[in-house]
Structures are given as C-alpha cells and as structure tokens.
C-alpha cells in the first residue's frame, strides 16, 4: 500500500464495475457447480452406504483424507494432470472438499429417521424405494440442507484460493490487489465474497424452512424428530 492513499478508491470501483460483476458471477458459478456436483456424488455414495453399511468407514475415510489436503497443495498436484487455469482443476479440488460434510450429513440424516416411523412406513406398504424417497429423505432434509449450507459457505471461501491457478472469481480481485499493493480490489473481493457467503447461507436457510414446514412445529413441540 502506498503512503497517503485511501483504503478504498471508489472511483476505481466505478470504473471497473463490469470486471467486478464478472468475477462475482464466476465466483457464484464455481461455487454452485462445486456444491451441486458434490451433493450429487455424496447422494450416490450415501445410497450405497444405505444399502451396504460396511462402506461407510472406507468412503468417509476417503472423503476425510481429501478434506485434509491443503487446498493450495491440491491445486498444485492437479495442475500437471488437468492443466493450469482450467476450470476442471479448480472444480475437482472444490468438489473434493464438499464431500466429507455432505456425505456425513446425508448419512446422519437418514440414520436419524426414528425406527418406529421407518417400520410404520413399511407396514403400511411403502416399497423400499418409496420409503426412501417419500419418508426417509424428506425427514433427513433438515440435516442434508444444514450440510449444504456449511459446504456452500466453505466453498465460497475456498474459491478465492483457486485464484492461484487463475480460477478464483473474486479471489482474482484479492490477488491482483495483493500483487500490485493496491488495496481497493482486495477489499472489494473480500467484502463481496463475505456477502456472497452470507446471502447463500440465508437463501438456503429459507429454502429449508419452506421445504420442511413440519420441522418448525416439531422443534417446538416434540424435540428433533
């Protein structure tokens, strides 16, 4: 940062509006793809575990291992394989980080379905498939969405790191500010990234409220059921 310069130059923001919005959109895109694919993969894995419980240990172990790899290192490891600056490189890493949280929450959600409810559903004549989709998944929804919220907020933060391989969305602003000792883009990038995380979190929360009206009364009247 140069002496005497204000932290934020509003005039720079005005001049670079298009670039900022472009980065924001890219950031949203990277996040949505990561969480979307992560959710799809986790669902498939959770269904495998639902069928064959013994898979839970190994699969969640793999997801946990992926989660512990430092993100910068993972980008570096993937670059020779999938290419520098490619969206595939960024997404493979980002998706990997969502798996642990999503997988654990989906499995915990399905495990949390009360046994009497499961048995009553079978006894009424739901087939196994109908019971899973019409009873167990809906009841697991609060935990699944809670997982999606954590995964989303985490991913919004991680996307900025992908700037090191040129796929960072708002991270590019942050990085360019750092490189040029010009603070305005860094502040803009950090602020928008934070705002985005909050906005997505709140939207998901409202989505959950909308999808699970029964959970609100349940929390008041009968505890988590």
């Amino acid at each position: 940062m140069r002496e005497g310069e204000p932290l934020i130059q509003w005039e720079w923001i005005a001049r670079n509006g298009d670039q900022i919005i472009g980065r924001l959109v890219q950031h949203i895109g990277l996040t949505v793809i990561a969480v979307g694919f992560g959710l799809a993969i986790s669902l498939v894995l959770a269904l495998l575990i639902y069928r064959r419980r013994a898979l839970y240990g190994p699969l969640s172990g793999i997801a946990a291992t992926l989660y512990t790899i430092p993100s910068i290192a993972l980008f570096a490891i993937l670059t020779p394989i999938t290419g520098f600056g490619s969206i595939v490189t960024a997404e493979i890493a980002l998706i990997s980080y969502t798996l642990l949280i999503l997988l654990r929450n989906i499995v915990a959600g399905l495990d949390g379905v009360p046994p009497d409810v499961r048995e009553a559903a079978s006894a009424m004549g739901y087939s196994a498939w109908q019971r899973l989709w019409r009873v167990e998944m809906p009841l697991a929804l609060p935990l699944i969405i809670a997982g999606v919220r954590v995964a989303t907020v985490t991913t919004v933060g991680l996307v900025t790191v992908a700037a090191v391989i040129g796929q960072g969305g708002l991270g590019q602003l942050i990085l360019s500010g750092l490189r040029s000792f010009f603070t305005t883009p860094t502040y803009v990038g950090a602020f928008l990234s934070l705002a985005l995380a909050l906005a997505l979190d709140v939207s998901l929360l409202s989505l959950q409220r909308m999808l699970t009206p029964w959970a609100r009364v349940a929390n008041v009247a009968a505890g988590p059921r």
Partner: protein
Amino acid sequence: MNAVDLEFRNVTRRYGTVVAVDDLSLLVPAGKICVLVGPSGCGKTTSLKMVNRLIEPSEGQILIGGRDVMAQDPIELRRGIGYVIQQVGLLPHLSVGRNVAVVPGLLGWEGKRIDARVDELLGLVGLKPGSYRNRYPAELSGGERQRVGVARALAADPPLMLMDEPFGAVDPIVRERLQNELLRLQERLAKTILFVTHDIDEAVKMGDLVAVLQVGGVLAQFASPAEILAHPASDFVARFVGADRGLKRLSLSRVADLELLPAMTARDGDPAAPLKQRLSATAFPYLLLVDEDGRPVGWLDQDDLPGDGAVAASAAVSMSPLLSRRTTLKDALSQLLDADVMAGIVVDEQERVLGLVTVEQMAGALRDQRPAAAFSDVKEVTVDDA
C-alpha cells in the same frame, strides 16, 4: 370390506437357536378381537409382525381369509392390513390428513375420494377434520396421535387390523377412553383385530378371545376372557392373571349391565319443600342438581335443603364421577373409589343424567359371579408349566 378369519398354523419363529414363537396355532374368527398377552419375551409382537411379514415365520403358515401370507406379495399384503403401533409411527413430515391418506394414496385412489375418506375417518375417531386435517403430528397430544393412528389404519377399510400396544404410550385416563372408543367403533366396523398388550386388564377388557403367551413363545391358554379368569389353564396363567381374578372379572361387565337407580334431580330455582319431603322417603338422601340441558351440576344433601323457598345451585357440592353405560364395572369402581364417593352418575353421550350406580351394586355384581371352583373341570391344558 368384510372381515376375514386369521389363522396361525403351527407357526414357529427362530433366531438362530433361540425360539421366539413356538408352534403357535390359533384361529381368530372374522370380526373378533383377539388379544395376545404375556410378559416381555413371550413372542407376542413377533407373532403380530409375522402376519404382515415384517418378520417371516421359520415354520408353519399364517392364513388370512384362507390365503397363506407367504404366498402373497408383501407390499400388497401390507396395504390390505391396518397397522397401529405404540409409538404410533405417524410420519412427522406429513400433516394429519396426509398421514391418514397414505395407504389410499399408495393404492392409487383418486384425490377427491381420498379427501372425503380422510374427513370421514377423522370424524369417526372424534377429531374435527377442519381443525386437525392440516396440523402436523408434533402439534398433537399423545391421545390425539393415537386416534390419528387408528384412523390411518382404517383408511383403506382393511378387513384385518394389527394393533401393537396401541394405547401403551398414553396416560391411564386417556387410555380408558381410547379403549372404549375402539370398542364402540368395533361394534360398527366388526374388523378382525389382532391386538398385542402386556396388560392383562387391557386384554380382558378388549378381547373377545385372549391368547396368553409365556416366555419362549409358547401358547399357555387361548380362550374367552371369562374362561381365562375363571379357569386358568396352568399355574403360569393363574400367576399372570393375578390373585385378583375375581376383581378383574368386573372388567367383563359394564355399567349398562346393572339396573340403574333413579336419580332425584332438580334445577336451580325449583321449590325446595316438596323435594325435601320426597327425598326423606328415599334410601339415598341426596338431590342431584342438573342444568337446563339435564347435565349434572352437583349434589345437594337433604340437610342442606331449605325447608321452604327455592333450590339454589350455589349450595351444590362435590360431583361424582360421570360414567357412560359402556364403562366397565372395574373402571367405574376404581373411579368411585378414587373420588371417594358411593355413587356414580351415569350419563348419555350428551352428558344428560340417566341414573346412578353405587359401589354396593358393584359389590353385588361380584357376589353374583359364578365362584371359580377350586376343582372345576380343568380344561385341556396346553402347557406344562412345571
């Protein structure tokens, strides 16, 4: 749908080497309630769950209306059998109405027909459709959930109902009311019902037939409640039924079986003098005050009646328990003893006074019962309880 026979033919269920149900044979005639009763570990719930194949028998056959359950598709089979369990198992994410609609929905009924059926059933179990249809199970009391559970089990009009301790999770007062309501419903519906409980009082009250099971899934006795109380087939049954068998037989009679005593009733403002005079001539010198609709308000002691002027409702004291004609004598006696009064007021559905019953009458009913002779014809003893 017409009720069907339910038959267990030499049914055995093993878990490894452990026998849960041992060579069980019994026939429940169509339209009857058969109660499976016994201590925990006697295989009663296992037996029940074999009927809709939640558990499958290791040996033997279970026939519903003559058809072997193992020869039927389990999903189809279950949709044709009502099922009520202790925890009710309502689907928490569906409203009351949609819970009741589950089986008709699975059977592919049309929307309008389902809606009409839901309202009909909620009304049948005493829940106003308008105020309950859209509520969630978590918003209901235990008793209300049980009612919804029963409505749901009845939804597709199955000929056979399985009930596993359906009233086990509610308090005694609600339980008694739900039991009475189920009996009242059954008079109309005449379903074949297999009912599991560990409570011998409930078994005696609810069952047309009672099957007493002992640990290891062995049938100790299968007979009418009166027969089981009068002639327990083995020491085990006698012990399980308890030392107060005579008292339990009060569960077999209802208030309606007694001759109701007329109650002298009066309303607020009636002239007191003639009432006082008439009252002094009766054996039960209490005046029952009723409101405009004939519903009881309270008692007036003969001595508290003014010699002239009018009866004042404000002088009325302590109510007796209100009994319905369907109340069993055991429940009635217990309520009178709890309230520490000698007479109960019998009322109709609108709570209008029909008459009185007294503790003495119930004692009389006990005396009239045929004494269980110590060496009476011992029926075929199915079990060696040595």
